């Protein structure tokens, strides 16, 4: 499926969009990290929690954790909050 990449992570993908596969969000992110080493740890911490300023949406709905089921063709959007100022 398609994964939309925020600008702060495009140093890894060189693109606003990436292709990744998996039946859960965790599997999708592991596949993304296989292609772009290091990207997963920037958005998921070592306790397997989505980092504080990161939100991930599947088909427009915010997900709470990595166990979220993903279907083929789902749209996954990684959003980096531009908080502060």
């Amino acid at each position: 499926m398609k994964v939309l990449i925020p600008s702060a992570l495009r140093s890894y993908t060189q693109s606003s969009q990436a292709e990744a596969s998996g039946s859960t969000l965790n599997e999708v992110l592991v596949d993304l990290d296989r292609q772009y080493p290091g990207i997963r740890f920037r958005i998921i911490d070592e306790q397997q929690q989505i980092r504080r300023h990161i939100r991930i949406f599947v088909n427009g709905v915010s997900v709470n954790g990595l166990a979220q089921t993903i279907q083929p063709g789902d749209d996954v959007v990684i959003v980096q909050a531009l908080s502060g100022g």
Partner: protein
Amino acid sequence: MTTIALLVSTRKGAWIFRADAMRTTWEVDGPHFLGHIISHLVLDPRDQTTLLAAAKTGHLGPTIFRSTNWGRTWQEAAQPPAFAKAPEGETGRAVDHTFWLTPAHRDEPDVWYAGTSPQGLFRSTDGGVTWSAFSSINEDPQYREWMGSEKDGTPDGPKLHSIIVDPRDPNHLYFGMSGGGVHESLDHGETWRVLITGMEVVEGYDFDASKPTFHDPHCLRICPSNPDRIYQQNHCGIYRIDRPSESWVRIGRNMPEEVGDIGFTMTVHPRDDKTAWVFPMDGTEVWPRTSPDGKPAVYATHDGGETWQRKDAGMPKEQAWWTVKRQAMCCDSHDPLGLYFGTTSGELWMSRDEGRNW
């Protein structure tokens, strides 16, 4: 010919300033990692080529970048410092940022140590490519109690810092924790012992000075010319210890009373163990993190802290409400040596004559 490289890490990225031997002509190289918070940028003294940068952005997780060509290109660590995954049902810690980097002993090429926020001690044995927990302190119940929670410590989070390797012995290590005190290992991190005797704690709360949790060392510096001597800038004063003594002496008591001996940074002379420099900070009431009375100055000692001299020629005489944080002051090794500091307001200052003029 470049003979000096000044490594500058900031909340907006990193820069390398290069100068000739006279330090009159400077060239700027950067920004590297524009928009990243670079807590520490360190050259490997063993190969004089490898740089490590501890980085994160305000929104993404932490990582470490490595260059083997003086910053022309960078590679990200394959496995940055990270705590162990907590057992199911328990809350674990996550590294917010790597705060401190120290190259290991010259006999241990490619070995580096890292200190993180919240407090964690990590090591790489492959030049900074992969990192893992070093020693048992990250998960040790006693150390976790001394570290406190992630809400303790500085506004940017509690930190493990000032990792020091005795240049005579790779097994002899020190580190400091804000908070959590000073610790020493004589067996390459197998075991650690507390080294806080003589260090004072914040007055008025009945804190027990024998407990590391109440101690907040800000910066430890070992003297290259005499590794038995360590200077310390602490939340509660300036100290010196001369090993094998077990007790710190508060040499900051000799500072002018109106200036005090609070601050974050400390620098020691590479050839003279009696000479060191501090940058005092306003330690009254809410700790505004400014120069005392808005009048910045470096203070120098040339007698191991018995006396201190104000060094502010060239600095603003009033209304300069900035200060200098932990890693943001250093010196080169020329004679006379150059002193450098970076301010919380983003300025870079230097002295070509050991602090007499800025």
